[in-house]
């Protein structure tokens, strides 16, 4: 029953492609008539055409369909409704008015926020990073002013030996700072001036170059000092170069450090003591070794 593609008999030569084209509506009336006349001499092809023709006619038979009109319209009316043209125009205008109103409200809000931003702020505005530099400068100026009263009393006590830094480097500097009662140091920058003599226990150091070191540490208030007289604050110091002259005191008090100008290339940790007690004298430092 099934004919191979392009198959035909010797007399009529009706191919499957031709039958396909017949039912694809791709043949002209003349071609169709010629094909039918050839089919009469090709029983197999004729049988295929008859079966296909019957099948196509079955497909073309109308299918009884239910009337959906009322149900569809009812559902559409429930969902959307068929509004008269005039009413629909009003609905459209109403929608447009709502959208325009919402846009205007947004514009007014945006304008008000630009004019008075604080009225819309529920929490305090965080400090932008951009202002940090200015704040530091202001604090530095204040610190320097506060420090002016301190400078005479600053005693860079000693360079710590122990495992100690090798010759040519300065690993740690410790300073003992005693604030006065009426002073509340918040940020202290230590910048010893050139030719200053800094005293320590049995050793005097002469600052040859300035600035030799700058030290910053966190806010420490007199109240905090009252609670903890030997409060220790950590900071960091960038030591570019420290010039010292040990000959004024007792050279060799710091093993491995040769008097002279010692260039430093790295940042070194510094611990600073702020309090009314002298940690070196009172023994606070015994348990605490410097951090490298």
């Amino acid at each position: 029953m099934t004919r191979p593609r392009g198959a035909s008999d010797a007399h009529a030569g009706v191919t499957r492609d031709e039958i396909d084209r017949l039912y694809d509506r791709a043949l002209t009336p003349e071609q169709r008539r010629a094909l039918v006349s050839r089919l009469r001499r090709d029983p197999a092809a004729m049988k295929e055409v008859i079966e296909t023709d019957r099948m196509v006619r079955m497909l073309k038979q109308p299918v009884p369909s239910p009337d959906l009109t009322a149900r569809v319209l009812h559902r559409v009316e429930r969902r959307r409704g068929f509004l008269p043209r005039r009413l629909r125009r009003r609905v459209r205008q109403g929608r447009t008015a709502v959208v325009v109103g919402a846009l205007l409200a947004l514009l007014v809000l945006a304008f008000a926020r630009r004019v008075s931003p604080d009225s819309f702020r529920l929490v305090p505005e965080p400090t932008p990073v951009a202002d940090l530099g200015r704040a530091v400068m202001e604090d530095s100026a204040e610190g320097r002013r506060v420090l002016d009263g301190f400078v005479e009393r600053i005693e860079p006590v000693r360079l710590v030996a122990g495992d100690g830094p090798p010759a040519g480097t300065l690993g740690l500097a410790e300073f003992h700072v005693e604030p006065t009662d009426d002073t509340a140091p918040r940020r202290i920058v230590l910048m010893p001036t050139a030719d200053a003599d800094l005293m320590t226990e049995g050793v005097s150091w002469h600052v040859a170059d300035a600035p030799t070191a700058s030290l910053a540490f966190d806010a420490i208030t007199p109240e905090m000092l009252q609670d903890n007289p030997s409060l220790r604050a950590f900071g960091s110091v960038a030591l570019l170069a420290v010039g010292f002259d040990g000959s004024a005191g007792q050279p060799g008090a710091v093993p491995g450090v040769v008097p002279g100008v010692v260039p430093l290339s790295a940042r070194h940790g510094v611990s600073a003591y702020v309090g009314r007690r002298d940690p070196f004298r009172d023994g606070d430092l015994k348990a605490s070794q410097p951090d490298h």
Partner: protein
Amino acid sequence: MDRGTERDLIERALAGDRAAAGDLIRGHQASVYAYLLRMSGRPYLAEDLAQEAFVRVLSNLHRFDFRYRFSTWLFTIARRLYLNAAQKCRPVYDSEIVSSASAGAWYDGERCEAESRRARRDVLQDGLMGLSEVQREIIVLFHQLDWSIALIAQHLDMPEGTVKSHLHRGRRKLRRLLMEQPGAADRLDLVSLGVDDERVSRGGGGRP
């Protein structure tokens, strides 16, 4: 329905004319229902889907682009609805039943099958259900609804050559399936039937 009449009906329906909307439905409901019935083999499902397709089309009539045929739009929506429904009616495997039953919601596959079996009393429908989905759809659109190859290709988003290939294979398979039905030879009376020009042209006729 010619395009002028169709456009007029759509514009009137858009303006709120209920009667025009009714005419649009009446003009297309037979073809949409027939298409959905032949595709699904389930009369109730076809009716529900046809109804839903019309509701969606009429609810979104303001979006209709007059460059296209209304029927194309309608059939696209009907097809999408059918594919969604067919997905729900797919065979359910045991493991899926166990896992979905515990969730408290699973599609009644037995009901789908029962309705489908009832519909298959129709010999033609039985044969159509033996085709692949794409073959069935192309056969229905081409032979039942008289769509052109080009329109079907556009509707199914596939090349015309592929449409033709599916059409030819589907036609041969459907013919074979129909002939395998009990008593098919009696019904067709093959050898006694002659083929005249008129009959062949009617079979291959339809839209030019």
